[in-house]
């Protein structure tokens, strides 16, 4: 493997101004592309309406506490947004590569670590905003009830969402730095995103599914992010919170490191 520069560069320190402008670029993209903004909000709404009304009759009971199924689904979908946004956002690397902009970034006198951090930060912020929009909509529709503690929960969800999206964005970066064309995107969608979505327990309760499903859900690292979302938003969870936090942190670190590694090795020609 041919190693490209930068890791061994003397200037491989982090350049904060560069990180911020790269992050800003990702945010610009999100807010300027009206179709993208509208689609993502509409998609969230659609999910909320369909699943919450479709599952309204299902009794969800966790640890003896009956949960409003709409709130249950809304919190799951908020977590799922992180999965979708993070991985698709990571694909923006692929887009930059295809449209040549990556060359401009790579030939600049900043370390790859800076580039990677800027990109990750931008994508994570993008995801956070998206999650808050969805939670705001759910609140307005009364899914979470009207409770003063909700404000606290909405604030507390920010660090949780941040932690959850780190691993996912890292995964998106790891994948997209290795891809060479958009065709492979469908494969990622089918074999990674969808299984992580369906087997995360975002839409159904962990204790309502057969044992083999439970095993799969437990193997899916993203299930723990969904679980922690519920712990914060609804106050109930299937797994102990310390387990959620541990898995999320390990998953985050693992994929951020993997992402950084692929980013450093990426050759742009």
């Amino acid at each position, binding site marked *: 493997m*041919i*190693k*490209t*520069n*930068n890791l061994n*560069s*003397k*200037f491989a320190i982090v*350049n904060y*101004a*560069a990180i911020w*402008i*790269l992050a800003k*670029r990702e945010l*610009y*993209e999100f807010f*300027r*592309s009206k179709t993208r903004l509208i689609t993502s909000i509409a998609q969230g709404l659609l999910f909320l309406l369909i699943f919450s009304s479709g599952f309204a009759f299902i009794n969800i009971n966790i640890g003896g506490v009956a949960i409003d199924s709409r709130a249950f689904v809304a919190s799951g979908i908020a977590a799922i947004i992180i999965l979708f946004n993070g991985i698709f956002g990571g694909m923006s690397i692929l887009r*930059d590569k295809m*449209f*040549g*902009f*990556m*060359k*401009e*970034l*790579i*030939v*600049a*006198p*900043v370390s790859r670590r800076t580039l990677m951090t800027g990109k990750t930060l931008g994508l994570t912020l993008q995801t956070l905003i998206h999650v808050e929009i969805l939670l705001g909509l759910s609140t307005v529709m009364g899914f979470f009830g009207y409770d003063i503690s909700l404000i606290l929960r909405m604030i507390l969800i920010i660090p949780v969402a941040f932690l959850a999206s780190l691993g996912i964005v890292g995964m998106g970066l790891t994948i997209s730095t290795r891809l060479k064309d958009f065709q492979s995107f469908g494969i990622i969608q089918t074999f990674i995103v969808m299984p992580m979505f369906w087997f995360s327990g975002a839409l159904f309760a962990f204790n309502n599914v057969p044992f083999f499903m439970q095993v799969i859900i437990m193997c899916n690292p993203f299930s723990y992010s969904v679980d922690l979302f519920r712990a914060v938003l609804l106050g109930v969870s299937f797994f102990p919170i310390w387990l959620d936090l541990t898995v999320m942190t390990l998953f985050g670190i693992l994929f951020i490191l993997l992402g950084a590694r692929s980013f450093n090795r990426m*050759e*742009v*020609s």
Partner: protein
Amino acid sequence: MSDSIIEVKRLTKIYEDGNVLAVDDISFEIKRGEIFALLGPNGAGKTTTISLLSTLLFPTKGEAKVNSFDIQKDPDRVRKSIGVVFQEPSLDNEMKAYENLELHGVLYGMPKKQRREKIQEVLKLVGLEDKANVYVKNYSGGMKRRLEIARGLLHEPKILFLDEPTLGLDPQTRRKIWDKIKELNQGNLEITILITTHYMDEADELADRICIMDRGKIIALDTSENLKKQISGDIIDIEFEITEDRTKIPTIINKLKELSGIKNISLGSTQKNGEEIPLNFKLPPNVDPETMKARIRETMSDPKKLIAAWKKYPMASQMFMNASIEMKIRIANLFADDLIEQIPEEIKQEIIKIKKGEYKNNETTSTPIISISCENGGKSLPLIIQKINDNNLIVKSVHMHQPKLEDVFLHFVGSAIREESSDRVKSIKNMIQMKQLRR
């Protein structure tokens, strides 16, 4: 401080996954303040060379210094010294022009105030100051190219790399970009420019020195003038009539080589369009060949005008004698029997022969042609024609011209077969294996 701003020593790059030897042991120096062109066909290794010098790729072997910084040991300093305009567009279409420049400025560590001033300055330089807040996706190809050049200049680099800057642009835009490049080089900025191109005219127009590359190797490096001198003197293209004797042409070539002042002879053949009027004489300096052709065409449609021309200009009668059979037949058919008497003697004989059907219209339109490079065309030409006549070959047309950069290019690159010889592939594979073993 040396006056070389770029020093390349035995630089080699092998793409291991493709077993491709892209750059093969090249060495050259670029002087401060010059425009240096890498000229070569597609796949010659020009872009790889630029990628190596801009630290996008690591060399397999060899070393290079850019602005006295080593490309491997000090890539960041190298990056700060250079501005790069890539072959493919590398702008963010979803951002405004100003934002593209701003991002660049931040990445290159420019403080805010300086950044703002500089952005206005470079936008003005490329004539885009009133388009600063337009999204790049709404820019035309030429505007994008200009914006990229502006971006490359933003951080005041000492050296500007331009990889095929005018590829796919219309002639006017090309001209504009050329002017900009010259301005950058000559104005008070005094930027050293390394440009790659496969357009001969571009290299000829812009470059102080031209480095011709082919298959990863440098095959010639000099000023445009000196390169042309290397195949100095004149080029004489002789086209033969298709006769049974044309098998003699190789023998003729050997005989011609014995003449003094002849440097090189190559044999080829042309596929000429019957309608094409060969201008087989030197035009007066201020006459446009196209107008000349048009006038000849006009004359050729009227037999009376033709006769007048033949009587007045010896050149015109000579042209008729040298014209292709198809054309002669066409002209002969213009003349009614009563007009034939007015034609000058030499041409009359020819036309009568044609009318009697002595010449048969030959099916093939491909005629053998030899290209002779010699020191003094004027001196050698009579001798050459003499030799050819001695061997009973009929010359159809003669075209003498000064060597163009294109001739130089073809002289060095040749139209030689492009396939890799098996030896070459083997040697590359060996090199790669050796490298892997060493690890």
